[in-house]
């Protein structure tokens, strides 16, 4: 398992019904591309996060497939519609089978 993986998400705490909000996510991960070589000239095996999803109350907002060309500490910024109060869930899927998740509540008035 990759070490020091820590998801960070920025979601506004409140919004109006039907508003568009901007979400920023970042997860610390070394994202080894499988292209680099170590000091002895051996290729370092690929170890990346290959999928990221964001859902709100069970409905999908965005589903991203990641390839090795995504930089270290994958960052995503996107926009979502919030029809009612609820919870965002964010999930990252690692090559090694680990799954990292994070959730944020939002109040809609």
């Amino acid at each position, binding site marked *: 398992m990759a070490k020091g993986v820590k998801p960070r998400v920025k979601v506004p705490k409140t919004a109006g019904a039907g508003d568009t909000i901007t979400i920023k996510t970042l997860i610390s991960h070394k994202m080894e591309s499988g292209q680099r070589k170590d000091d002895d000239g051996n290729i370092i095996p690929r170890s990346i996060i290959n999928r990221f999803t964001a859902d709100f109350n069970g409905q999908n907002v965005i589903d991203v497939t*990641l390839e090795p060309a995504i930089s270290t500490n994958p960052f995503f910024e996107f926009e979502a519609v919030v029809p009612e109060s609820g919870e965002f869930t964010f999930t990252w899927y690692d090559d090694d089978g680990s799954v990292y998740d994070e959730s944020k509540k939002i109040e809609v008035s």
Partner: protein
Amino acid sequence: MQLTRRNLLLLSTASVAATAMGAFPAFASLTDDEIAKLTGGANLGEGAITLTAPEIAENGNTVPIEVSAPGAIAITLFADGNPVPNVATFNFGPLSASRSASTRIRLAQTQNVVAIAKMEDGSFQKALANVKVTIGGCGG
């Protein structure tokens, strides 16, 4: 055919040549191949998709890229100068507001970044941006 040394040599040269020929067309346009795989050879429109990328990236390890295509169900990014051209695919769900996303990508050298958007009606849109990279980002 009798298996003499000469025949054996001929055989091996022929097979080497065949492998080389087989690998060649893919090498010529890896990105075009990947795009054709995605679109099934459909015509690519232009205009309904915006790709924002810096003109010059000092560090190829983290190049900010932004894509936006109103009415798209998915946007795929390619980098034609990378060892592997595929970068990422964004699939938009029902609660996605603007069908846009930003991320940071690695570029190995100066090259074109290509964005292909799949629209709701099944058509495809293409946008291209050239990024000059001063320090490459795919290691080596």
